[in-house]
């Protein structure tokens, strides 16, 4: 079969990345294998006696038939057609693409953690339980919350966990509330989670300074409101300056104040949600606490609560009695389970390792530098792009490509695609929804000044190209393994799995 490594022509290495990699089903040959398993060492028995034929599959699953080296070449080729933190800069707003330390990987991949069965008796899992117990205490201190659960697998899962706890809290009080408020700048997961938790969503607009509009908020705050879901710093990268007034207004109608902690990287050791009046919050450990994103997951959520919500935490919790750590399943008021077992433990080991590496001063310095890096980039880019909210930003900021669109018919998407040619990932674009042609930039603290300056030069060059050679930008990217992809056909005629070619199907 033809693969890039077997082709007779000798293209330049750089063009190799542009050559399509055949799907793995097209590699290999019938009967070829790449595995090694022991022969059965138990007495022979007819298979029919073990699993009746009626329960067995008629044909083996049509999986690849490849050698071990085929597998290695295939996934190595794919890895070359990817972009990652280890390769370059991801100025991806709201995603906190900071460096993922290697020591975290070494810690998490030890057999004592990686090969531990979740139903192993507690007496042989004391190290894992101790880690979870200590991590909970660290997270409670960092957030100003009273207790923390690590069951949620990701941020959105944490949102749902929190909303279900809020529901249970009101149920216990004999109250029925049906509405959750989200600002118009919120992450899409906020309203989606509220719907999944059975709530009606009311959206509140932002004011001219980019804060939630206090008057508009007060107007919709009634005793039907269960919670306000607020991101702080918000998705414009701005701290909610009236947070204390917001908290007071929410609590005045007996509602709960929820923090979407996606942007926690701006405030480590600087201010704590528990002190700001938040009742419950989630953290994305795959953002602030350096666990790798894995190409879309796994993440790890953590949900912190103040004392009045503690009874409703998912079961089990982790408790210490004497010198021994134990899982507590006896939590009668718990919302129940959010997943099987205890959480994305492997990522919790990584987050724990990171916190121990940094210590209190290191975490605070991380936030200070994340904010300084963002303000530096903002100062360098504000001349070339529109800036809808002109304030000191936190860890990220939002520009607008309105000027380039209106004057040169070059969109934010075009400029984002052009940035790929310069060797950078694109910023988050068209979010938050309240900024036209939004360009949301988050540098994180782990990038050097050289990297930031190179990024600035690329952005300024693209702003010039939009003016002098707009077609170059409109048709970007040019240097990537593929050019722009036909997303319309992809959605209209979905091809979601490979099927073997037949003679009648010349695809």
């Amino acid at each position, binding site marked *: 079969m033809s693969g890039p490594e077997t082709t007779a022509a000798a293209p330049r290495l750089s063009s190799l990345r542009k050559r399509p990699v055949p799907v793995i089903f097209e590699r*290999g040959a019938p009967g070829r294998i790449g*595995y090694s*398993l022991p022969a059965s*060492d138990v007495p022979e028995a007819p298979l029919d006696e*073990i*699993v009746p034929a009626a*329960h067995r*599959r008629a044909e083996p*699953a049509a*999986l*690849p038939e490849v050698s071990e080296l085929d597998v290695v070449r295939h*996934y190595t080729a794919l890895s070359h*057609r990817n972009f*990652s*933190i280890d390769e370059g800069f991801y100025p991806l707003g709201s995603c906190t693409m900071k460096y993922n330390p290697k020591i975290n990987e070494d*810690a998490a991949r*030890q057999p*004592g953690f*990686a090969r531990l069965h979740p139903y*192993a008796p507690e007496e042989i899992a*004391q190290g894992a339980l101790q880690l979870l117990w200590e991590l909970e205490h660290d997270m409670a*201190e*960092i957030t100003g919350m009273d207790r923390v659960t690590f069951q949620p*697998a990701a941020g*959105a899962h944490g949102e749902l966990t929190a909303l279900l706890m809020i529901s249970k809290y009101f149920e216990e009080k004999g109250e029925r509330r049906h509405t959750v408020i989200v600002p118009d700048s919120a992450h899409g*997961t906020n309203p*989606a989670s509220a*719907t999944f*938790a059975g709530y009606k969503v009311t959206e509140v607009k932002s004011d001219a300074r980019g804060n939630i509009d206090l008057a508009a908020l007060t107007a919709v705050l009634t005793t039907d409101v269960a919670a306000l879901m607020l991101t702080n710093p918000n998705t414009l990268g701005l701290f909610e300056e009236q*947070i*204390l007034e917001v908290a007071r207004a929410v609590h005045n109608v007996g509602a709960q104040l929820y923090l979407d902690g996606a942007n926690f990287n701006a405030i480590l050791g600087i201010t704590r949600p528990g002190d700001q009046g938040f009742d419950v919050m989630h953290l994305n450990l795959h953002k602030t606490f350096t666990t*790798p*994103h*894995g*190409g*879309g*997951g796994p993440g790890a959520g953590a949900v912190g609560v103040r004392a009045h919500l503690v009874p409703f935490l998912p079961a089990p919790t982790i408790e210490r009695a004497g010198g021994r750590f134990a899982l507590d399943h006896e939590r009668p008021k718990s919302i*129940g*389970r*959010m*997943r*099987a077992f*205890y959480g994305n*433990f492997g990522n919790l080991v990584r987050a724990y*390792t990171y916190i*121990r590496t940094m210590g209190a001063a290191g975490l605070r310095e*991380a936030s200070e530098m994340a904010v*300084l890096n963002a*303000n530096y980039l903002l100062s360098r880019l504000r001349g070339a792009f529109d800036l809808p909210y002109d304030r*000191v930003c936190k860890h990220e900021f939002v520009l607008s490509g309105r000027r380039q669109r209106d004057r040169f018919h070059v969109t934010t998407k075009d400029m*984002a695609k052009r940035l790929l040619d310069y060797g950078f990932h*694109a910023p988050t674009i068209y979010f938050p929804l309240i900024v036209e042609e939004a360009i949301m930039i988050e540098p994180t603290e782990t990038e050097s000044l050289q990297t930031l300056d190179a990024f600035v030069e690329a952005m300024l060059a693209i702003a010039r190209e939009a003016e002098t050679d707009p077609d170059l930008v409109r*048709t970007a990217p040019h240097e990537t*393994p*593929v050019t722009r*992809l036909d997303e319309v*056909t*992809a959605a209209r005629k979905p091809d*979601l799995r*490979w099927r073997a070619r037949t003679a009648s199907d010349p695809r």
Partner: protein
Amino acid sequence: MKYIPATQAERERMLRSAGVRTVDELFRDIPEEVRLKRPLDLPPAVPDPDLLAHMRRLADRNTDCDRLACFLGAGAYDHFVPSTVPHLALKPEFLTAYTPYQAELMQGELQAIYEYQTMMCELTGMDVANASMYDGASATGEAASMAADLTKRAEVLVSTAVHPEYREVLRTYTSHLPITVRDLPARDGVTPPEAARQAVTDATAAVIVQSPNFFGSIEDGDALASAAHARGALLVVAIAEPVSLGLLRPPGAYGADIVTGEGQALGNALNYGGPYLGMIATRDAFVRRIPGRLVGRTVDTEGRPGYVLTLQTREQHIRRAKATSNICTNEALNALVAAVYMATLGKQGMRDVAELCARKAHYARTRIAAVPGYSIAWDAPTFNEFVVRCPMPPAEINRRLLEHGILGGLPLGRFYPDLADCWLLCVTERRTREEIDRLAGHLETLQ
């Protein structure tokens, strides 16, 4: 601090550019009252060599499956993982990548997930599989809401032979949705199709079963499918042990409408319960209601094949409150692990590993049934797990076995009080005849 590269001189240059004199000025928008006036009370920073030693000590306080003969399964399986899996799936190019929103830069990840979706379809016999969910339990919860939406019906029936933790999550997930969950009691270790037929009504959205079920028994898929379909309900099949599908009939072949499950067994580490791999697959007709990300194949402007995230109008970042699910971050890396695992084992290897599991489990089943006082609880055919009735409390047996380096099965009393004398054992291809004989030998001498 090695993760923060800015030098003092660079910081000063940046401050000047930002138009401030100190970093503190950048935080002036935070109200004075809520600024933390003290350092966080955390353990001190630890240099790498000491930290690695500390992490090793913590890990060593656990006894993992490298140091035990593991007969414990119950939703997390100790299978052999080929070396290709960590060396390829955990390459930093995949590990440290973000969600492939910029498709042109992320063809490797996207193609790998497209191939994963294909392998999942082949394994389950379904038309379309998504790019992953959180885990088997939450995927099953999502399937209930998907089925209710598709049928416009409000009740789901769930067999009590579905993993108890999946059922707990199903209840949590549906607790504030207009969906009621009703138990379908298992009998003799299986879900009786006749009882299902009687329980299904015109209000039933789905019948949810697991096969092999929590007790290890293989369900009668054809009969359960026809029980559900007779009244227009969907059959949802949860697969907790996907290696079984190397040998067993895929749910698509007996009429499943939605397959959910836990993909951990496909090359993912035990990891004390996570991260694992939620699976969901369905029929073509239901693709626009599936939760989570999907990768599709298309072409670029020069006609070359390429891959993109597609049908995104189902998802929260576009549809917000009207999305099919709130899921955003998924378990892409675990899906990649499963893909490399399935590619390495391949067509023949998946069949071989499944058959080895079945043969060894069958031997263990026969061997333990011959120990005085012990019996196999039910007659139903099993794959690599089975339930044993014991003459003494299973937790006590486990305690004694642990002294001999054996990790015993799951005592069922915790989840099923009426099965307090029952013990769920698992035998994967990793267990040797010698270990099985040793287990049986200890049972013979335990008093």
